[in-house]
């Protein structure tokens, strides 16, 4: 019976793990060490700007321990979605950290970078060929949308990672990749069952999220075999139960039974969860249904300009009982003021002022069933968006003052209708991005969308 041991250091590089937990995992002689480096969970800023989410010292601390372990064991180390969004800037950032650690620790190894940022000309060609299809739901797509994106990445599966390992890479820094592919690659290469390999990978990629009580981010290990896998957290005080492991396919998945990967679908409909001990679980009957063609999911981000925010509380009951009218009217009247300031060069189509009313429907927006109810006070978040920083700044400053004194018919005389908790009342957010793609590409060759480079460190 094949057995491949896969050690997951933590759910996210930079979120940390207990050194002794990881050391215990190392002592169990894994065949591979892997760690996920990113997600879309923190929003479009990281893909749009290329900037990482977790701190550099945090990421470096985690990477150092993993690099030392992989050197000691002589096994591959795979980091996925480097720099959080997994674009080229993220891979460069992770490469720099890796090289620094190598110098400091005197480590030598063959390294592969596998980049997943997409060339726009390539994508437009595939689009014209009808090889880009929307997922459900998806925003519109066009060549213009591809062109105006700040960055677009494709989520690699296991094939490019296996290719790098076959070429002798000992540390593999991947751009955007499916979380699972980092952990499924080596078991698949060594002949473990595909169903167990992929399902185990789904649990490993989140670190200790599948334990009964998650104390903190930490290491977890799987023993992947032909027709089942075992899973156990490395900290002896943590435990997995059949229910906690079964529950894991709920997390961040639309469907708890079917998870789509570039080369097929993980099917957990028939999976059976058995307690091996009070803290380890064996999972039987997980299947992987291979698809006819590889499909690569795209993530894209485009700039929406610059933003500033203004936070103001309202306690005055006469304003509260006409709140929407007050907010709408002030924005309509404000357009004339913008015309004045910019001598007609900035019109209503060139900026927006969005309002969010906390205390009514700020959290749930149009889903809020209790939006007819409002308390005795609200907090209003105004978001000013315009093409560039100077315009946004000028509009935000002016609007804060304009809104503050905007009258209501009940009171004769000058009022101050917003309670600002700070001054200046506005805060610049800088450049802001939005996700603009939810589509898959069907390439001709599963490697064609990813660029691998090997180097000796």
């Amino acid at each position, binding site marked *: 019976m094949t057995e491949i041991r896969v050690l997951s250091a933590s759910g996210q590089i930079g979120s940390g793990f207990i050194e002794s937990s990881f050391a215990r995992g190392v002592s169990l002689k894994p065949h591979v060490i892997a760690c996920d480096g990113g997600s879309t969970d923190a929003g*479009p800023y990281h893909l749009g700007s290329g900037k990482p989410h977790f701190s550099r010292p945090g990421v470096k601390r985690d990477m150092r321990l993993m690099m030392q372990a992989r050197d000691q064991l002589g096994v591959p180390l795979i980091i996925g979605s480097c720099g959080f969004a997994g674009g080229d800037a993220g891979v460069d950032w992770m490469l720099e950290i890796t090289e620094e650690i190598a110098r400091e620790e005197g480590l030598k190894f063959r390294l592969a970078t596998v980049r997943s940022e997409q060339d726009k000309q390539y994508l437009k060609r595939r689009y014209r060929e009808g090889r880009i299809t929307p997922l459900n*739901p998806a925003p519109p797509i066009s060549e213009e949308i591809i062109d105006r994106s700040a960055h677009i990445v494709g989520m690699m599966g296991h094939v490019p990672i296996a290719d790098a390992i076959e070429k002798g890479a000992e540390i593999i820094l991947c751009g955007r990749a499916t979380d699972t592919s980092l952990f499924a690659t080596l078991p698949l290469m060594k002949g473990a069952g595909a169903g167990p390999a992929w399902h185990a990978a789904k649990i490993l990629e989140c670190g200790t999220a599948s334990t009964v009580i998650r104390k903190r981010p930490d290491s977890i290990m799987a023993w992947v075999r032909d027709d089942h896998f075992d899973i156990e957290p490395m900290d002896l005080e943590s435990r997995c139960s059949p229910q906690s492991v079964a*529950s894991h396919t709920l997390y961040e*998945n639309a*469907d708890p*039974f079917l998870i789509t990967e570039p080369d097929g679908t993980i099917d957990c409909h028939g999976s059976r969860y058995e307690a091996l001990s009070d803290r380890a679980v064996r999972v039987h009957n997980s299947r992987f249904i291979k698809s006819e063609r590889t499909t690569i999911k795209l993530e894209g981000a485009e700039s929406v300009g610059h933003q500033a925010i203004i936070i103001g509380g309202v306690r005055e009951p006469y304003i509260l009982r006409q709140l929407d009218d007050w907010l709408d009217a002030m924005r309509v009247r404000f357009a004339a003021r913008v015309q004045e300031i910019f001598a007609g060069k900035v019109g209503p189509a060139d900026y927006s002022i969005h309002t969010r009313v906390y205390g009514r429907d700020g*959290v749930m927006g149009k889903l809020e*069933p209790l939006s007819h109810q409002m308390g005795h006070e609200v907090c209003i978040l105004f978001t000013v968006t315009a093409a560039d920083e100077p315009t946004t700044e000028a509009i935000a400053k002016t609007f804060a003052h304009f809104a503050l004194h905007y009258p209501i018919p009940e009171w004769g005389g000058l009022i101050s209708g917003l309670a600002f908790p700070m001054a200046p009342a506005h805060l610049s957010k800088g450049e802001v991005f939005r*996700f603009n793609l939810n589509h898959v590409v069907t390439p001709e060759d599963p490697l064609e969308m990813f660029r691998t480079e090997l180097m000796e460190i």
Partner: protein
Amino acid sequence: MPTLGELAKLIRSKNAGAFTLTFDIMFQDAETYQRVLASKVLTKQSFAKLYKLPEDEVMFFEYDAAHAIKISIPRPYIQGDLDDGDIYGGQQHAPLVDLVVPDGNVKLKVDGLRRHDE
């Protein structure tokens, strides 16, 4: 009559990617899970009505192995868009917590107290 929050081990919402929102209602044991299902307090139809959505946009799953109900919908706003008030999608489940479960025989959690597993 108990509420869904009192019977559930965990109720949460989360992003499933940037375009889909998913809700998990997890129970401690098969018995409580089956009785809540039987009560029909939470179905595709009742969720669609509570959240003011067309029924065909609601995906409803009974996940027996985890004693959990899962519901997934298109994200009301694309994650991170100007209109999005919840980047992680973690605070959209609140109306489910106070839903009254009409079956009087359903077992409460241990000691009837709320469990605060992380």
